[in-house]
């Protein structure tokens, strides 16, 4: 369990003792209550007196977990790939490398597409963040951050700014200027503050809010303008490595995956963990929503990618092969959700048929492990970032 070390989200009169102090926002019987930390401790001790011991709580935990498994099992009347047997197989794909983006001096750790479907931002181990025009290979902007290992970067929905963060434990927003001579690093603004490295970041539907995941085991939602923490998400028991926002039509949730092998779905407004999935056998490196928002996929160091349906509340497919023994680092869906592109540490990208569960194609080209891959917003191309210092655009 991680310790929250950044400021509490609210300050005000405690619901119990009425003293004004930093409040802990917790839930009792699904009702939100705001107690100061002293009252929370008192309540914990009172709970003990009522006969609720650690052992009894643990036992109840185990019973509930078993019940959950039973409930989920009851609804597994058929497997996804069985239902998909009547679907036509995917025709042979003709996806090739169309662009190679060279310019980073070290491992490229992350990339993101701009909504205009041609620009993209990438960040690397040497602290450089570059904005590229994917059509022309032009480097439009470059920022050098004072820290190394910029593990996360994201393009703002407006296309006017990028967010980046990593070992500096921060996530900063850099406004992109049309003036090429302007020093972008000077306008960089620190928004998120974590107590360990920032592993992932994403703007919400606007440039005004930023969601981050961190090695400190938490995710957090920040107001970009003021840098204020709007909501924090606790539940992971180890580093959180990835997050993805639900597609806008389906509302305010996001999914995160981490080193505790769990994938958690969160409600952005309340901070509550709505659903949790634990079937991977090693760290989850990447999570990505299915285009309809009803499911998500995950990539893990256990060399498998898995597919979870949110309404059935369980894993519905595992994408694995005996010949694939290296961890998967990143996944993304094609526009219709039929194809799942997954980048692996053995330098390849495997393309899976999401419904039938078989591998459709393998994309070779990179000379080191894939760190991140993303399909463009209109689905015409796939971009992959790699430790071989390059990015490739496939179409």
């Amino acid at each position, binding site marked *: *369990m991680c310790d929250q070390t950044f400021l509490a989200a609210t300050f005000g009169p405690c619901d119990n003792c009425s003293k004004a102090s930093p409040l802990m926002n917790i839930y*009792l019987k*699904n009702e939100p209550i705001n107690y100061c930390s002293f009252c929370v*401790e008192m309540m*914990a*001790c009172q*709970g003990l007196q009522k006969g*609720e011991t*650690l052992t009894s*709580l643990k036992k109840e*935990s185990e019973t*509930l977990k078993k019940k*959950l498994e039973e*409930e989920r099992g009851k*609804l597994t*009347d*058929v*497997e*996804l790939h069985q*239902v*998909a047997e009547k*679907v036509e197989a*995917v*025709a042979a*794909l*003709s996806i090739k490398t*169309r662009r190679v983006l060279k310019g980073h001096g070290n491992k490229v750790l992350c990339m993101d597409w701009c909504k205009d479907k041609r620009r993209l931002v990438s960040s690397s181990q040497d602290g450089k963040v570059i904005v590229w025009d994917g*059509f022309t290979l032009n480097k439009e902007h470059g920022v050098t951050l004072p820290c190394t290992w910029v593990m996360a970067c994201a393009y703002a929905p407006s296309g006017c700014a990028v967010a980046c963060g990593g*070992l500096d434990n921060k996530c900063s927003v850099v406004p992109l200027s049309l003036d090429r001579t302007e020093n972008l690093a000077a306008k960089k603004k620190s928004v998120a503050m974590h107590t*360990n*490295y920032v592993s992932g970041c994403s703007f919400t539907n606007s440039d005004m809010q930023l969601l981050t995941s961190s*090695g400190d*085991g938490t995710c957090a939602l920040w107001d970009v303008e003021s840098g204020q923490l709007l909501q924090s998400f606790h*539940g992971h028991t*180890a*580093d959180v490595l990835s997050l993805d926002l639900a597609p806008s039509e389906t509302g305010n949730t996001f999914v995160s995956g981490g080193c505790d092998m769990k994938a958690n779905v969160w409600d952005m407004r309340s901070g509550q963990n709505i*659903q949790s999935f634990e079937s991977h056998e090693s760290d989850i490196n990447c999570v990505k929503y*299915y285009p*309809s928002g*009803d*499911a998500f996929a995950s990539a893990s160091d256990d060399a498998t990618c898995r597919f979870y349906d949110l*309404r*059935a*509340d*369980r894993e*519905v497919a595992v994408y694995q092969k005996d010949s694939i023994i*290296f961890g998967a680092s990143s996944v993304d869906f094609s*526009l*219709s*959700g*039929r194809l799942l592109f997954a980048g692996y*540490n053995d330098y390849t990208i495997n393309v899976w048929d*999401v*419904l039938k569960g078989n591998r459709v194609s393998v994309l070779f080209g990179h000379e080191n492990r894939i760190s991140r891959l993303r*399909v463009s917003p209109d*689905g*015409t*191309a796939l971009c992959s970032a790699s430790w071989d210092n390059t990015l490739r*655009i496939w*179409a």
Partner: protein
Amino acid sequence: MSSKLHSSNNINQRIPSSCELPRMSSKLHSSNNINHARRMVQQLRMEASRERIKVSKASADLMNYCHEHARTDPLLVGIPTSDNPFKDKKPCIIL
């Protein structure tokens, strides 16, 4: 609980072990233990009471979505070279 950044023997090492970083704290006080256990139970109670649908229904919906959008999926069905800005058209002649 080992931090991802300290698995120096693991070939899937994320960053070099020479990077010194604080490990995530895992020590709990006894009252935190109770709180933690109570929160776990509340979380599980909430999860157990959720509405779920059958996998057959969920699968059918996923298949429908794929089917509806398959025609407009460029990477799945391929689009003409002229429509794809990343695919090179006729080679340019540089005079």
